[in-house]
């Protein structure tokens, strides 16, 4: 009995030491002393390989150094050692997102949110991952309960607008964009979404002021110019369309959607050689985008080169077999979230 008590005490002391080292490592991390933190976590794990704080700390440290595969190993051990840990699961999920492991990330985020449903960043991360796999409705379900949280969170609004839009619920997306514009009147992104929504609903004149305002607020942001160009393209004002789409293309020279719109405006205005040049640029920027080759095929045909039209059309059809349907929202706007 005596020996057992001594062993139990020794084990506790051992554990306390590992825990203390893990805590020290966390403090060092906080103080931006990563090398020393690494040493503390390593010593902690040497004493107790299942020390959750050390595993989590090590994972976080490696994550912050962009060593995602190594971080994943530690974080998976942390989750296995303490399945109830919100922090370990959230960190693991963030790491999996970086490794483009969308489905496992979603699994971890769902588990994490069961433990801490109020965590806004976890909700936002889960929603963005759900959008990646086109689970738009679940993304809405994840974010809708927190959109009215105070203080309002701009990112929540942006992701939710996108989720509504891509799920086909354009009326709700539009309503939210209007509400968001009132809450964040100086957000270039929100105003751009509002302009996009108005354009999508055919309200071209109403769409222009928020887009122009977005450009004032964020001069480097190209998407408002892109959407404005698309509006003029629909209005068949090709001169204005080319002007704004050129401005967008200056800022996003490799954006296929901008180049596609620009080439259409050029072709419609009779500038066929410029249109062809723009499309060839789009093909270099996005060689696997079926729509680029579709537009190329049409332009070649208009220019009287049917063999090239056939070639581009065949490539477009082949590429479509491997691509999922395209979202109606501009990719560049989605990427800004």
């Amino acid at each position, binding site marked *: 009995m005596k020996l057992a008590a001594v062993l139990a005490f020794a084990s506790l002391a051992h554990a306390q030491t590992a825990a203390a080292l893990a805590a020290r490592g966390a403090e060092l991390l906080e103080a931006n002393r990563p090398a020393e933190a690494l040493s503390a976590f390593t010593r902690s794990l040497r004493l107790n390989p299942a020390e959750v704080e050390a595993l989590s700390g090590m994972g976080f440290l490696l994550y912050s150094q962009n060593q995602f595969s190594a971080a994943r190993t530690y974080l998976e051990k942390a989750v296995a050692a303490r399945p109830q840990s919100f922090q370990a699961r959230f960190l693991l999920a963030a790491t999996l997102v970086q490794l483009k492991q969308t489905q496992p990330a979603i699994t971890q985020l769902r588990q994490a949110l069961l433990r801490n449903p109020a965590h806004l960043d976890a909700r936002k991360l889960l929603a963005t991952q759900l959008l990646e796999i086109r689970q738009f*409705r679940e993304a809405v379900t994840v974010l809708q309960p927190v959109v009215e949280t105070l203080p309002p969170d701009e990112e929540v609004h942006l992701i939710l607008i996108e989720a509504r*839009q*891509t*799920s*086909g*619920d*354009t*009326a709700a997306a*539009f309503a939210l964009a209007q509400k968001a514009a009132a809450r964040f009147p100086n957000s270039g992104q929100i105003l751009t979404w509002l302009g996009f929504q108005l354009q*999508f*609903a*055919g*309200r071209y004149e109403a769409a222009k002021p928020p887009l122009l305002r977005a450009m004032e607020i964020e001069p480097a942001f190209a998407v408002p110019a892109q959407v404005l160009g698309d509006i003029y393209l*629909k209005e*068949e004002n090709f001169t204005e369309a080319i002007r704004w789409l050129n401005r967008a293309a200056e800022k996003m020279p490799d954006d296929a959607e901008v180049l*596609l719109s620009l080439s*259409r405006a050029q072709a419609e205005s009779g500038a066929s050689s410029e249109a062809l040049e723009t499309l060839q640029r789009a093909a270099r920027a996005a060689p696997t985008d*079926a*729509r680029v080759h*579709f*537009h190329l*095929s*049409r332009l*070649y*045909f*208009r220019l009287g080169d*049917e063999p090239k*039209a*056939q070639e*581009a*059309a065949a490539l*477009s*059809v082949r590429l*479509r*077999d491997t691509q999922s*349907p*395209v979202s*109606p929202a501009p990719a560049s706007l989605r990427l800004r979230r």
Partner: protein
Amino acid sequence: MASRGAAALPAPTASGRFFPVSFTDVAAAAGLRSPQIAGGESRKFILEAMGSGVAFLDYDNDGWLDVFLVNGSRFDAAPKPGHHLYKNNRDGTFTDVSVKAGLAKVAWGQSVAAADFDNDGHIDLFVTAWGRNALFRNQGDGTFLDVAPKAGVAGDRTRWGSGASFIDYDRDGLLDLFVANYLVFDPARTPLPGKDPACNWLGAPVFCGPRGLPFATNLLYRNNGDGTFSDVSAASGIGASQKTYALGVLAADLDGDNWPDLYVASDSSRSLFYHNNANGTFTERATYIGLAYDENGMEQAGMGLALADYDGDGRLDIAKTNFADDYPNLYRNLGKVGFTDRALFAGLGLHPQYVLWSAIFADFDNDGWPDLFLSAGHIFNEVDRLPTPQKFRNPRLLYWNLGDGKFEDVSTRAGPGMQARHSSRAAAAGDFDNDGRVDLLIMNMNQPPSLLKNANTAPHHWFDARLTGTASNRSAIGAKVRVESAGRWQTVFILSQSGYYSVNDPRAHFGLGTVAKVDRLEITWPNGNVETWRNLEADRVFLATEGTAPK
């Protein structure tokens, strides 16, 4: 069915003009009371959602349009009626002569094409089906005989025949036959609703398809002139796999080279344009001539097709219907450089909440501009319980051609027949009471059809041309009919099937507005010969026989 989340666009400023047409459903009073069956009320398979065709035809050559209704079937034990033929009594009513005519055949019928394939002076019927197709030869005595097996067009196995069209693709005066096939369907191998992740819609289990179900290939049969056909699908290039789900069909000279081409609307995949190479082969060119996708290069869920020169520039344009959350297409023919989609510019983007099926161009008010009718109806019964504004039964849509490249939505101003809610599919246009006003016949899922009588109050004149080929095929399928009146030309093309699965009045109808005279009638016959008649009276049916125009 592809869905793209399209928003309803704001209606353009109203023209302020009075639309003089009102439609009333007179089907029951006219005796068209038998329902067209297409599946059970709880639809487990996509086959039960597609509906079946309708036709206006004059099977007894008495100058009055009769009605043919294709019937589908059902998987449950409820009664399964056969096809229906109604003879026009010339007093606004019809008599069901289906059994006597030998047409009451039970099948999973789909579409109907009508033409005189054997040039004997009597209109014949080709009916596609899931199963074997039927070629009902009109024996000239009020009866029909299914000669499909003997003629070699029944199909060599169970296929899902969808749209079909007679076409004299080699211009030898004999009508050949194009048959589209939708997909490969086997109920034993098709997952039930919700049993596959793809078999859900808005979170509810629904029938599967078309995506996920195997593609089929299309068929072309060459008429041998002896009552039989040869399958030339492979040799002509038509039979090559295109990985599309083919539905509506148009056979017409769309590129103005005097050889008939084929355009096929495809569901959830790119649509196909088979260009006639004038040597017995076809080249698929839809992508680069602008008929495969919308203007952004997005795939659509195409259903039905209509053909007209809607803008009066002498070229044939195309309207195509699509699934909900999308807009219809209005492909304007630009001549040598292909087509461009003008649907939104023309004002057709107002109602993306409807699944649209049949498209019909016809001049309902006889003002000289073809208007556009669209039938609507959802495919999922479940939609009424789901969080969406879409409904299973919908009103019809009517767009009035304003003559400036734009259309005005007059659906709610065009009478009770236009506003009645059904889940409609096929539709045909024709003047069944010979009053010079174009009426409508519409298929409603598991209900009797609607027969919308046109009560146009505008004092407009009209002119109909009924064509008989002699050197060309007798039905003049593939003829281009042009009319000049008061300096304006109008163009109509003679088809054996259009809309969705349906057959319009075989007579070419022209509204003349306030002008009571046709200055010139010009017919380009299917063999390329052109004949002209001059100074014809309005408000009549003119019988134009090939080779009889004054020199």
